[in-house]
């Protein structure tokens, strides 16, 4: 009797799950399969196409631009994440303390995140302008530079310029996630540590960090995936230029697909990074799982 009830419940579970599984398959599964197939063709939009085997993959792996773009993607992702984490943590610690005007400062810190990405990108682009941009004007007026810095035109600086914008936009996410975590820490833990003779650094390392470790993990992993796939920030500020110096995988894929109309090759580029994203997702999944089992 009990077994048949369990079986019936299982069946009902499958039936109720089917629509969502089907929907996910239609929305994500089918396009993914189609993308995978097209990556083995010479597809250009508006023209007929045929299978070319692994030719697209061989071409991109032989192309120095692909490796430059991949290198840029890693530099962009790692530097943005590290700096957003460090600065976000520092600001969160600061804003966790009581001081006059704390509410106002907290709201102000949300501004970069609240501004639409397009508006922010165009504003930064204007500020970075070597001739009229406010950044160069200020640096020149305080005597820091003699000639303007080519924020968007120098191939050694363009990537740094877009990294700065990503950090500026991304700090609030880290800040408020970590701040939320800090506010859940029981103050008695700090009191106990003090009694045990722990100094500020030890209290930070042994109380604060372990207490908000789950928050740090999730925030960092989510932000890593978003930053790895960031597109609008770079496309709107530098267009990936000059000569792909600030191009990352997402902008390179887009320009190969829609500017050069090489859809097959572009999809091969995007498929080639799936293993990296899958590894990130597996790590994320494991960490979320271990955090939950720790509770």
């Amino acid at each position, binding site marked *: 009797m009990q077994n048949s009830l369990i079986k019936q419940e299982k069946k009902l579970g499958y*039936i109720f799950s089917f629509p969502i599984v089907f929907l996910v398959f239609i929305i994500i599964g089918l396009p993914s399969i189609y993308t995978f197939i097209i990556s083995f063709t010479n597809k250009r*939009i*508006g*023209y007929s196409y045929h299978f070319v085997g692994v030719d697209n993959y061989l071409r991109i792996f032989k192309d120095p631009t692909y490796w430059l773009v991949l290198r840029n993607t890693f530099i962009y992702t790692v530097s943005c994440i590290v700096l957003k984490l460090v600065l976000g943590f520092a600001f969160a610690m600061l804003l966790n303390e009581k001081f006059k005007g704390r509410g106002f400062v907290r709201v102000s810190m949300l501004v970069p995140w609240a501004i639409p990405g397009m508006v922010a990108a165009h504003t930064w682009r204007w500020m970075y*302008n*070597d*001739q*009229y941009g406010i950044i160069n004007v200020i640096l020149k007026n305080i005597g820091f530079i003699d000639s*303007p810095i*080519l924020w*968007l*035109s120098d*191939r050694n600086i363009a990537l740094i310029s877009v990294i700065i914008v990503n950090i500026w936009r991304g700090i609030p996410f880290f800040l408020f996630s970590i701040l939320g975590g800090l506010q859940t820490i029981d103050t008695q833990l700090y009191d106990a540590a003090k009694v045990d003779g722990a100094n500020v650094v030890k209290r930070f390392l042994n109380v604060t960090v372990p207490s908000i470790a789950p928050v740090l993990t999730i925030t960092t992993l989510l932000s890593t995936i978003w930053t790895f796939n960031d597109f609008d920030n770079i496309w709107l500020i*530098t*267009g990936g*230029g*000059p*000569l792909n110096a600030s191009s990352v995988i997402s902008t390179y894929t*887009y320009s190969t*697909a*829609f*500017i*050069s*109309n090489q*859809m097959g090759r572009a999809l091969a580029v995007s498929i080639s990074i799936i293993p990296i994203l899958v590894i990130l997702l597996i790590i994320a999944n494991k960490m979320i799982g271990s955090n939950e089992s720790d509770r």
Partner: protein
Amino acid sequence: MRKFILVLVSLAMGVSLFANGAKEAESQKLVFWDKSEYVQAYNEQSKAHFEEFCEANGIEGEYIIIPPNDLKQKLLASIEAGNPPDIIVTDDFSAKQYAGMGQLLSVDSVTNAIDFTQTGKNIASVQNGNYIVPMCVMAPGFYIRSDKWEEKGLDLPTTWEELFETAKIVNDPENGFYALGYPMGASGGGDAESMCRSIILSFGGVPIDENGNVTINSPETLEALKFIASLYTEGLCPPSAITWDDMGNNTAYTAGSVGVIQNSGSVFSQLKEEYPDLLEKTAITSYPSGPYGTYIPTGGNVFCVFKNGSSNDMALKYVEYFFEKDFYENLLTEMQGMWQPTIDGVTDNDFWKDPANAGWLAASQNGVPNTYPAPVTDLTTLSFSEQLCVKAIQQIVLNGVDPQKALDDLEQSFKDVLGQ
């Protein structure tokens, strides 16, 4: 459970039948993706004219303004989705690629009904058929700050060599003034590639010959590439000009920070409207010449009608309606010389009798196609819109690549695009 599923399926079928019925009852819709123009009056008048047409014909109209740099991406996505707009206005070199893709509807009915000028026919000409309607010619001019050259006691340059030598004298970067303002960013626009090709041709180089063969790798092209690169390496252009898009030179010239630009009448119309003092200090002449003469790649805006659009007949009818004499003549005047006509009988008025405007009209008749002397096909025009020459110059200036190596790579890029 079965009953539940039966009811659910019946409901879904009912809803879909109702939706189909509603769709059939919908009125015909004409979708027009217009180019956002530098002169705002164009989009306002174009929209009003389109809406008037739709109302008169009892159809629903959707007018969307799209920046030129975004059009290609949006259009390719819509073609792939099988849902392109009915009509677009775009640059002639982009339109020729869509014609080559087999996406466009023949415009015989329009070209039979309207007598286009030879210049108009030239910018709409494409090897594989009659798919493009020329809307306007946009002849480029050579804008030079005559006051700056006079200040130094210099004559205005008539050759590239003279331009280079006098620019060195006029150049004053310490005070924020650069002699030249040539954009060289691979942003998708046509200004930079057009400028490169005009110099290559006037130095005797030929990117693609009249038989469609890639012939760019020659000593003449090499000299041209070295010359163009020297404009940047010698500091005659603002350092960031190497990444400017097509708006960069307009902005720099109207801000008074550069002395020479090559641009269509867009800057002329803006100077007339907003900077009359600067216009007085500006001379607009023909391009300088090189050892092999002067070449002015000239294009324009064109109409395309997509065969997979939903209202083919209405789209063709609207394109014909656009050239209604009073509207078109008035629109050209509003464009302040930026546009030159593609039909006869609209220049017999005070505006075009003004020598300043008449100069643009004459210039529009002396240009060569952007891909000259190559046959006009989707691939030769793709080689133009891919900005291959621009990228070669960027390699020399930004990466310090040897010019001959950059030229060898450029030749290979041309061959890749043309499948040779």
